[in-house]
Structures are given as structure tokens and as C-alpha cells.
């Protein structure tokens, strides 16, 4: 394989990492509070706002049920507004971020809802404010689950990032489509797939390890 091609693969890998990192960071930063809100704003919960909860839930569901490839195309005007362009790596970050937000929010919601209600009651009995309960109890107790949620989100993002290649988004997916498929270079396709597999493996193992370290629920010495 020519050095040029290797260079291309290296650059594509970096592009993918950049897209995943930025979309993952912004998406989870926005998704986290939305997830917390979804988990705590039902009737009789810490910040009761059942109507807003329902509306936010509806928007989250709508975004999640839109196929990613359609989302990419549908928000092109918005992407252009934010980045000034609708093609390339920079442009791809916008739909990736938009897709990450509801995905991560639902995982955060599930992680928080999973926490024993007795802990919330105990904290209330201590005189904790709802905000204190969120930070000192819910987020602290959900840390292992949140770590796994973030891991799952990044893994999905890697998959999505390959899809934006189809609309000129750059990165490994783009490389695979243009060289591997359109120019029929199976070796490039193979390398692209292998790099993606390695990326996912590394992220998953790191996430699992971190979650295990955070998890104090099982007896170990």
C-alpha cells in the first residue's frame, strides 16, 4: 500500500477522533442536564414539572426516532448557520452533536431512575435541597452507570461518524466510501473497518474499567 494511502488513513482517523470528541463533549454536556431533568421532573419528584417533562420527552423521542442520515440532511440549513458550510468534518460535528444529546439524555435518565428511592428519601430527611440531592446523591451514586452511558454514547458516535462520510463529512467512513467502495479498493475498506473496530474496543474497555473503579457496590478487597 502506498505511503499516500497510509497518510490518508491516518488523517481520516484523526478526523473521526476529532468529530467524535467534539460532538461527544458538547452533546453530553447538553444531554446530561436534560437527562437529569427528565429523571427528576415527573409528578411528585424533586423538580416537579410534568408538562415540560412531557414536552422535552416528546422532542427527545422525535430526535431519536429520526434516522441519522435523514437528520444530517434535514438540518443542513442549521449546520450552515453554525459552521458556514454543509460539507466536511466541521459541518459533520453539528448533526453528530444533535444526535448525541437525546441519546445521552435518555441514558442519563435511566441511570438516575435506577437509583434506590430510599436514598432520595434519606437525603430529604437530612434536610437536603433538591439541588443538593442531585449533586450529592444522584450524580454521585450514578457515576458508574453514567460512565457506561458515556461509553455507549461514544461507541454509537463512532458508528454515526462513519455515516456522515456519505454526505461528505470526512473521516474514516468517508474514506471507506470513496476509496474502498467507489474506487473498489478492498484493502482500504478492510483497514478502515479494522481501525473502527480497534477504536470501539479501546473506548469500551476504558469505559468498562473506569466504571468498575467507580462502582463500590460489590464487596472487593
Amino acid at each position, binding site marked *: 500500500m502506498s505511503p499516500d494511502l497510509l497518510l490518508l488513513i491516518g488523517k481520516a482517523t484523526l478526523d473521526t477522533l476529532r468529530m467524535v470528541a467534539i460532538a461527544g463533549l458538547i452533546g453530553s454536556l447538553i444531554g446530561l442536564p436534560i437527562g437529569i431533568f427528565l429523571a427528576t421532573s415527573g409528578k411528585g419528584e424533586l423538580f416537579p414539572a410534568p408538562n415540560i417533562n412531557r414536552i422535552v420527552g416528546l422532542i427527545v423521542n422525535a430526535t431519536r426516532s429520526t434516522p441519522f442520515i435523514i437528520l444530517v440532511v434535514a438540518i443542513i440549513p442549521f449546520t450552515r448557520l453554525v459552521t458556514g458550510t454543509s460539507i466536511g468534518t466541521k459541518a459533520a460535528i453539528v448533526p453528530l452533536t444533535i444526535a448525541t444529546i437525546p441519546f445521552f439524555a435518555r441514558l442519563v435518565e435511566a441511570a438516575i431512575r435506577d437509583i*434506590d428511592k*430510599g*436514598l432520595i*428519601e*434519606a*437525603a*430529604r*430527611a*437530612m*434536610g*437536603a*435541597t433538591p439541588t*443538593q440531592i442531585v449533586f*450529592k*446523591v444522584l450524580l*454521585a*451514586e450514578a*457515576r458508574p452507570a453514567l460512565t457506561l452511558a458515556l461509553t455507549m454514547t461514544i461507541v454509537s458516535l463512532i458508528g454515526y461518524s462513519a455515516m456522515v462520510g456519505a454526505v461528505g463529512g470526512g473521516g474514516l467512513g468517508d474514506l471507506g466510501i470513496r476509496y474502498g467502495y467507489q474506487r473498489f479498493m478492498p484493502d482500504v475498506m478492510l483497514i478502515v473497518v479494522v481501525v473502527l473496530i480497534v477504536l470501539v474496543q479501546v473506548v469500551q474497555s476504558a469505559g468498562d474499567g473506569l466504571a468498575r473503579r*467507580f462502582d*463500590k*457496590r*460489590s*464487596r472487593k*478487597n
Partner: protein
Amino acid sequence: MTFPSSEPSAGDAAVVFDGVSKRFAASGKSGAFTALNNVSLAVGRGSITGIIGRSGAGKSTLIRLVNGLEKPSSGKVLVDGVDVGGLDEAGLRNLRRSVGMIFQHFNLLSSRTVFGNVALPLEIAGMDRRAIEARVRPLLDLVGLADKHARYPAELSGGQKQRIGIARALATEPKLLLSDEATSALDPETTQSILELLKRINAELGLTVLLITHEMEVVKAVTSDVAVIDKGEIVERGHTFDVFTHPKHETTRALLSGLPGSKLPDAVARGLKPAASAGDRAVVRLTFFGATAERPLISQLIKSVGAEVNIIAGTIDEIGGKPYGSLVVAYAADAETSGRAERFFTENGLVTEVLGYVA
């Protein structure tokens, strides 16, 4: 407000329930129901007061009214003279910082160490790190877990977890401790040690303890006062000793019948008949307490009855620090023997109950 004479007056009480009712509206599958119906009760300052009832009797709701985790539908709950229902959220948080609570399933944070769990209420109250450290250490000593301060709850036994729960509840130096079935998830031996700890805290810190339980053993072991709750109503209350020795309500009797020594052996219970025929023996329960508990009653009984007396079941125990005995005996049911026995019981001030007759 009027209370029976055995109750502390409202001024003396740490907690007063005044005509409290709690109704839950219908939601989803469950219909509307009344958890508490016009409950009035005063919890004496410095006492260990037990509220006993079967599951679903309303005791969980009752204890949660004290720190405002539940709100009464009508009536008032006063804690140290303050109407809990009249407090806003900030006032309620202040109240909760002066009322400790422990739970059946401990409710410890798995992500925090022993130290961190006890420190939590102090962090919530906005105390600085050094003051927290100074407060937590002696508490861990008090509950005997100083050496485990860096462990996580998952590494501890149930009894140790409850000790942390107790240390945590005491962290803000409350005057009142609420115990929600705190020993129900523990084995009998651990239960005893936790109850001993509660007793010690009550005596040493002068803390009022209000506990709910479904176990008469718990009530017997630690409480000075007890209220029996059934279907959302207080059916009986008083000093624990009086309620145990003279139970009036059917629910109380049913709860008491589970205690060891109160139960007849199955073989006897099966053969019991309501009326005597010739040659039968009478089965009689004698209850004795105070001074009578210390006299050689049995030998005197055998002498005065002048016939054989069998002991079928019996227990000698202490309730609220007073000796108490319950003895089931059998003797010939003929008129002469019975007459002598009854005379003996009256002379000695024994409380008796004829349970039936056996062949």
C-alpha cells in the same frame, strides 16, 4: 386537646399528633384509601416510644409525618411545639436537620465511605471540612466503627450498616430520632445489639426515640411507651409494661401471642376444650409482676392447692425494666381444687385467665 393521664402533657411532649388523618387519592391501579384516621398521640420527651402494627397499618405514614416527608390531610403534627404543616420548604429543611432518621434498608450511599456517609448530613448543612471531621470521628467511636471509616457500605454487615445509619442520623445532633423498622432486616442477635445501642443513645444523649416496628420483641426490649396501630387507628397505648401485662385490644393480644412463652405447645392447644368434664384438668395462665415475680409462688401454689400442678409454658422477662412473668399451669378441674386455687390467686393478687380444659 385531652390525653389520658398516662400520657405526657402537650408541653412535655417531643412530638404531638393531634387528630391527624391521612388520605391518599386514587392513582393508577390503587384506589383512594385512608392510611391514618384521626390519630392523637403524644410522644414524651426523652422517652423511647414504639408504634407497633402489622404491615399496612399506617405506621410508616405516621412516622413520615413527623419530619414532613408526608403531609397530613387534616389535623396537626407538632414537633417541639412547632406545627410541621405550617412550615415552608426552608423551615422544613431546618426541622429535618434537627430530627434524625434511620431506615429498614439503611439507605447508605454506596459511593461514599463510612466516613463520607456520616459526613453527608453535615455537608448538606454547610459545615466546613474541619468541623465535619471533628464531629464524625467521635460518632464513629460511639457506634464502634472507628476502624472501618475508610470502608464502603458493601464491605460491611447489616448490623454495621445500621450502626453507620445511626451515626449519620446523630451527626446533626438532633433531639429526636425516628426509627423506621430499623431492625427488621437484621437477624435476632444483631437486632439486640442495635436495640442496645439505641437504648444507650437514649440514656446518654437524652434523645427522644420514636420507632415503628411490627415486632413485639423490639417494643419489649427498648420502649418505655407503646401505641398499637391497626387500620390507621391507634387502638391501644400506654406504658409498655401496662400494655404487655394488661392488653385490652384484640390486635394487641394477637401481636403479643407471637412472643415466646406466651404460646401454648401445639399438643396442649389442640386438646383444649371450652368446658370441663369429669377428671379434666384446668389450664390457667397466671401473670405476675413487680413484687410477686420475686416470691416462690409455685411451691406456695402447690401447697395451697394440695394437688399436682403441671407447668405447661412459662416465661420470666423484663419489660421496660420491670420483672414480669407469665406461667401456664394445669391442675385438677374439680370444684374443690379449683376453689382453693382461686382463693390463692386472689390472696396473692395474681392476674389469671382460664384458657380451657384438657383431658
